[in-house]
C-alpha cells in the first residue's frame, strides 16, 4: 500500500488524466439512477397526499394532552367527512372505575344464525366489500370440542340436529399474548379489561395477529369502504371509528356502547338470548350469577391466556 502515505491533497487515484471524464460519466449514471428511482417510487406521492404532517407526527394515545386529544379527534372527524361524506362524532370513552367487563355465551341456546356477525360488521364500520366482522361462528359436530372438525363456512338452515355452534371473538385475555408481542405498545389492556389498539400508532407489523390464539385480530389490507349512509356515526377513538389502511383492529366489546351503559351490538342482535354481558365486579349482575352457578369453561385454557370470555351449557 504505497499511495496512502501521500499527503491527501494529491489525488491518489490510478487514472489521473481520465479523472474528470470518468467523474462526469459516473455522475451522469448516478443522476440517471436517482431520477429512475424517484420515478419508480412516485406512487408514494399519492399515499403521502392522504396523510397529513399532523398525522405523521401524532404521539401515542396515552401521551396526548387533553387539548392534543381534542385536536386529533377534530381532525379525524373532518377526515371522515372528507373521505366518507359522513357526519360523525368521535368520543374518548374511558373505563368506568370499578368495572371489569366479561362476556358469556350459552352454547345450548346459540343456533348459529349469524346475526351477531352481521351486527358487528355494521356497528363497527367494517369494510363492506370484504364483509369483515370480529366474530366467527364455528359449526361443530356434537360430542367434540376439537375445532379441527368444525367449519366457519357452513350453509343451509340452522340449527342442524347433529351440530352445535361456537361463536369466537376477542376473549379480552387477562394475559394477552397480542399485547406482549407488540413492539411499539400500540395495543394494551385497559382497566375495565378491554384490549384496545391505537390505530394511529400501530405500525402494521401484524405480530399481534400471529400471536393471538383465537383469530381475533384483523388487518386493514386496504382503506375500508363504507357508503356514507351506512356509516355508524356514533364512534369512539379506541373502537369503531373508521380505521386507516395498514393497521390492525379488533373487538372492543363495543366500548363506545358499553362504557356508556349500553350492551354490545352482537348481544342486542342475538335472537336466541345466548349472549350475556356484564360487570363481573358487580355482585348483583346476571353474568356473576352465571359464572357462579353454571358449568363454565374457556377456550384453549392450556395456553394460559386467561380469557374474560366464557362458554357454558345449560
Amino acid at each position, binding site marked *: *500500500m504505497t499511495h*496512502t*502515505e501521500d499527503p*491527501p491533497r494529491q489525488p491518489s*487515484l490510478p487514472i489521473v488524466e481520465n479523472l474528470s471524464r*470518468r467523474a462526469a460519466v*459516473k455522475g451522469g449514471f448516478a443522476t440517471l*439512477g436517482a431520477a*429512475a428511482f424517484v420515478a*419508480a*417510487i412516485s*406512487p*408514494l406521492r*399519492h*399515499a403521502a397526499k392522504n*396523510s397529513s404532517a399532523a398525522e*405523521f407526527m401524532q404521539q*401515542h394515545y396515552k401521551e396526548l394532552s387533553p387539548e392534543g386529544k381534542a385536536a386529533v379527534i377534530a381532525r379525524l372527524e373532518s377526515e371522515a367527512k372528507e373521505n366518507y361524506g359522513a357526519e360523525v362524532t368521535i368520543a374518548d370513552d374511558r373505563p368506568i372505575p370499578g368495572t371489569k367487563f366479561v362476556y358469556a355465551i350459552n352454547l345450548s341456546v346459540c343456533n348459529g344464525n349469524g346475526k351477531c356477525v352481521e351486527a358487528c360488521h355494521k356497528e363497527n364500520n367494517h369494510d363492506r366489500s370484504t364483509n369483515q366482522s370480529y366474530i*366467527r361462528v*364455528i359449526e361443530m359436530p356434537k360430542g367434540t370440542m*376439537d*375445532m*379441527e372438525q*368444525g367449519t*366457519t363456512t357452513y350453509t343451509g338452515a340452522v340449527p342442524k340436529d347433529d351440530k352445535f355452534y361456537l361463536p369466537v371473538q376477542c376473549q379480552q385475555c387477562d394475559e394477552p*399474548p397480542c399485547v*406482549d*408481542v*407488540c*413492539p*411499539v*405498545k*400500540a395495543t394494551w389492556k385497559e382497566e375495565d379489561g378491554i384490549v384496545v389498539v391505537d390505530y394511529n*400508532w*400501530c*405500525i*402494521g*407489523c*401484524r*405480530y399481534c*395477529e*400471529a*400471536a*393471538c*390464539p*383465537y*383469530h381475533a*385480530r*384483523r*388487518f386493514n*389490507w*386496504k*382503506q375500508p369502504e363504507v357508503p356514507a349512509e351506512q356509516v355508524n356515526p356514533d364512534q369512539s377513538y379506541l373502537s369503531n371509528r373508521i380505521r*386507516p*389502511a*395498514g*393497521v*390492525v383492529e379488533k373487538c372492543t366489546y363495543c366500548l363506545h356502547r358499553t362504557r356508556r351503559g349500553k350492551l354490545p351490538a352482537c348481544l342486542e342482535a342475538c335472537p336466541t338470548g345466548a349472549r350475556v354481558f356484564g360487570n363481573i365486579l358487580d355482585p348483583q349482575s346476571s353474568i356473576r350469577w352465571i359464572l357462579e352457578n353454571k358449568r363454565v369453561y374457556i377456550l*384453549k385454557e392450556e*395456553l394460559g391466556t386467561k380469557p374474560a370470555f366464557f362458554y357454558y351449557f345449560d
Partner: protein
Amino acid sequence: MSSIPVKESHLTRYPKFLGRSLWLATEGSFGFYAWMTMLTALFLVGANAWAHQVAGGMISTNMTDHVSWGLYIANFTFMVGLAAGGVMMVIPAYLYHDRKMHDVVIIGELLAIAAIVMCLFFVLADLGRPDRFWHLIPGIGKFNFPISMLTWDVIVLNGYLVLNLHICGYLLYMRFLGRKPNPVWYVPFVMLSIVWAISIHTVTAFLYCGLGGRPFWNSALLAPRFLASAFVSGPAFIIVAMLLMKRLTKVRGLDAPISTLTGIIRVTILINLLMVASELFTEFYTGGAHVSAAKYLFFGLHGHTALVPWTWTAIGLNVVAALLFLWPGILATRHRWMLAAACAMAFVGTWIEKGMGLIIPGFIPSTLHEIVEYAPSQLEWKVTVGIWALGLMVFTVALKTALPSLNQPAE
C-alpha cells in the same frame, strides 16, 4: 490509538477513505457495469412495486388475516440465517487460528452486512405503515422492551450491522492509511461478533417459538434448527462467491478457505437433516392435534396441497446436496462445478425450508383450524427480487472495496 500522528484527524480522513472506496468500487470492466445495471434495474422494479403497495394498501399481496405473514417474512428469516452464517469464517480464523482463513475472513463479514441490510428492507416491506417506522426507534418512539421479542430482534440485528460495519470499516481504513491494524481495535469485536451472530438467529427463532397458539413453531428445536441451517446457507453462499472470485479477480489463496468451508458444510448439513428427522418423528409418531401443520406441509391437509411441492423440492435438494458433500471427490479442483452445484442446492433447499416451509405452515391451519392457503402475489415477488438485487449490489460494492486488501494478504 495513540500511535497516530495528528497530522489530519480521522474526522476528515475517514470520509476521504469512504469516497475513495466508492470511487474504486465503481470502477470496473464491462461485465461489472452490466451486472450492476441489471441489479439496478431489478431494484427499481422492486421499488416501484413497493410504492404501489404502500399507495394502494397491502391488498395487492396475497396475505390474509389467516396467513398474515408471507414471502417477506420468509425471506427475512432466511436472511438472518445468511447473516449469521458468515460467522462460520470467523470461527476458524480467530478461534482456530487458521491463517489462510484470516486473510479472507472479511468476505463473511461483508456478506453479513449485505444480508442485514436485506433483512431490514424485508421488514420495512412487510409493515402496513412504513411511514410510522419511527415509532420503533427507542427514545422517540415507544419501545416495548424487554417484553416484545421483536424489539430484541431490532436491537440484535442493528447491533450486528454496526459491529460488522466497524470491523470491516476499521480493517479497510487501516489499509487505506497504510498501517497495520491494531488488534486491540478489532479482535475483541470479532470475538463479540461470534456470540452476536448466534444471538441474532436465536432471537429470530424466539420470535416464532414464543407463540403458544402456533403449535408448528412452538418447539424448542426451532432455534438450534435455525442455526444449523444458517451454517449451511452462509458458507454455501461464500463458497460460490469465492469460486467466482477465483475466476474473475486476481485474489489468491482462496483454495484453503474453500476447503475449510466445505468441511464445515459437510457437518452442518447432516446436523440439519438429523434435526429435521427428529422433529418429524416427534410430530408424526405422536400424532394428535399438533401434527396438522406438519401434515399440511408434507402431505397436504383435506385436499389442500399448495406447499407440498415446495417441501419435497427442499428435501430433495438438501438430501442430494448432503450426499454430494459427503463424496470426497467434491474437493478435487477439476470438479469445481460439482461443488458449486452442491452449494446452490443446499442454498435453495435452505431458502425454501427456512422460508415458505417455516413461516406459512405456522398459519395453516389457522388458530381456529381453518385452512386458507397462500401463494405469493406477483407484487410480492417483485418486491422480493428488488430487495435481493439491492443486497447483491451492496455485497458486490463492498467486495470490490475490499479487493485491494484481498489481493495482498496480510503479512
